[in-house]
């Protein structure tokens, strides 16, 4: 574990919830942090049901870095949303970080997300009226940390992603790669055990994409984050320890 990694680990947010144990042992030897059993997800297009996920079983061990691949409409993002607690399964069990998400209310899931999931989006989703540091601070507004502690944690997270010299910059003053780094800093600032990344390199050039993937690998190895990444990019998927493929709602 690097020095900055230890720094972030020591500055616990005070948020509760399950944390990955992160012993540094091989991922496959660890208990699953994500368990899906007989999961179905059906949307309705008008009155017509569209089955997106079909009886899906999946165990993801703590500390693994997994890539989800598959053609458009195969159910990758839907699966990611179920794991991240953004959506509910139509049936089956979704157990993540020790919580059965199907049994949580909407507000309980929201609170659970803030403590257990870090989000990395394709389109960054930074607030343009806030500086990089303030964007990173956003999730901490929901904690009981003081303003000073929030600022310190945000600065540490930005240091980890290599943007300590861009803290006071607004999103418009950052490159795409830098914006995605800020998004990653925002995702790890509460020290969640799981990071979900939906096409994190989709809007980036090759060099920036490689930098971001290096960072994700670092977060997985040094900070022991479990990472689930949806991607269309085979080069990105290669950086994951496990690649899973979805087709028509089933893992193949």
């Amino acid at each position, binding site marked *: 574990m690097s020095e900055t990694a230890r720094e972030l680990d020591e500055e616990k947010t005070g948020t509760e919830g399950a944390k990955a144990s992160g012993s540094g042992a091989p991922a496959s030897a660890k208990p699953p942090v994500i368990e899906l059993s007989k999961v179905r997800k059906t949307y309705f297009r008008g009155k017509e049901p569209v089955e997106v996920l079909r009886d899906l079983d999946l165990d993801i061990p703590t500390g693994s870095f997994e890539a989800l691949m598959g053609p458009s409409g195969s159910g990758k993002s839907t699966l990611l949303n179920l794991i991240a607690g*953004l959506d509910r399964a139509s049936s089956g069990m979704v157990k993540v970080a020790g919580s059965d998400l199907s049994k949580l209310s909407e507000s309980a899931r929201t609170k659970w997300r803030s403590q257990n999931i870090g989000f990395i989006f394709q389109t960054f989703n930074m607030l343009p009226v806030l500086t990089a540091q303030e964007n990173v601070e956003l999730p901490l507004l929901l904690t009981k940390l003081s303003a000073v502690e929030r600022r310190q944690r945000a600065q540490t997270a930005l240091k980890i992603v290599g943007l300590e010299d861009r803290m006071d910059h607004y999103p418009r003053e950052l490159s795409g790669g830098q914006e995605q780094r800020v998004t990653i800093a925002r995702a790890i600032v509460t020290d969640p055990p799981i990071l979900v990344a939906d096409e994190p390199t989709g809007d980036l050039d090759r060099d920036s994409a490689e930098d971001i993937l290096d960072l994700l690998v670092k977060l997985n190895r040094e900070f022991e984050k479990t990472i689930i990444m949806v991607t269309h990019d085979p080069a990105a998927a290669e950086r994951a320890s496990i690649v899973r493929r979805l087709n028509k709602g089933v893992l193949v």
Partner: protein
Amino acid sequence: MRAISLGVRNVLRNRFRTSLTILGVAVAILAFVLLRTVLSAWTIAADFAAKDRVVTRHKVSFIMTLPGKYVDDVAETPGVKTALLSSWFGAKDPNHPNEFFGTIAVDPQKFFEVYDEVVVPEDQKAAFFAERRGIIIGSAVAKKLGYKVGQRLTLTGTIYPGNWDFIVSGIYDTTRQSVDKSSMFFHYDYLNEWTKQKRPRSADQVGWIISRIEKGRRPADVAKAIDTKFDDSDIQTLSQDERTFNTSFLGMISAVLKAVDVVSIVILAIMMLILGNTIAMGVRERTHEYGMLRAIGFLPKHLVIFVVGEAATVGLLGGIVGLLISYPIVEQGLGRFLEENMGAFFPYFRIDSKTPPIALTLSILLGVCAAIIPAYRASQLDVAASLRKIG
């Protein structure tokens, strides 16, 4: 950074649109302040009314006259210090046919005893007493129409037809707002002589009687005593303290005042729609961001705070800008113009002290109201769906 500051910072996001919205709110607040000032200016004569004056008129209607001998009877009523007869003349200056000013026939000596707030230089007052055709003119109308002391002035009578020659004896000012500075006062005898010749049946009649009452007397008691005196007469009277008398005039235009009141509320409703539209546009554009905020743990109530905070800030800024432009426009520009040109109706056209806090409170409240629907929609976003939505 605090959660509430996020809503406030969003105000600066689209500066051009926010500026236009703030300007729209500011114009609505200006219109609101203007209309409230019209209302308060209209009622201010009642507010400024002297507490020691009682006005006596015909019991049936203000336009019906009283016998001139009633003046002495009123003067003899216990509690009355001085009784002043007054008759509405109604005249136009043929050189300024579109200008309105009040012309009232009075007893010159008693006029200054009853209206001690009217100030005229002693030499001009003496000239007014001495000259049967003398007339004293309010400083506002004198300034506007260019009347000078000593000049001859011919007015055309509207109720008493013909050309009436006057000599401007003095220009009066006032120490209180209870008398406007846009009227003219002249000798009742001058009018009554004409009436005796041309309309003998209307001679020795007066429009109304104003009594100055003794210190410590209650106006209501004196008014009752006056009316009791004429209870058994053919022509009965209605006496009221000056404030009630002035307010009864407002009753005649109550429909107009009500309409002005309603218009001021309609203007605020329009302001709310302008603001609501802007906020709704902002919420639509930020669907993706709100989805992100919900994803990372913000609750629907937080989004409501962001949206409402932004709307309240825009409302407040619009209110402040509206008030800042209201003062020079209403008090310096329009106010002066109305006081000089329509002093009979608007003797004191100034923004009432209660109006700014009301306007600011309303601008914030209406901002909050305008944000209710957009805030509700933001709070009900489907998180997964809103993250898929771009733009």
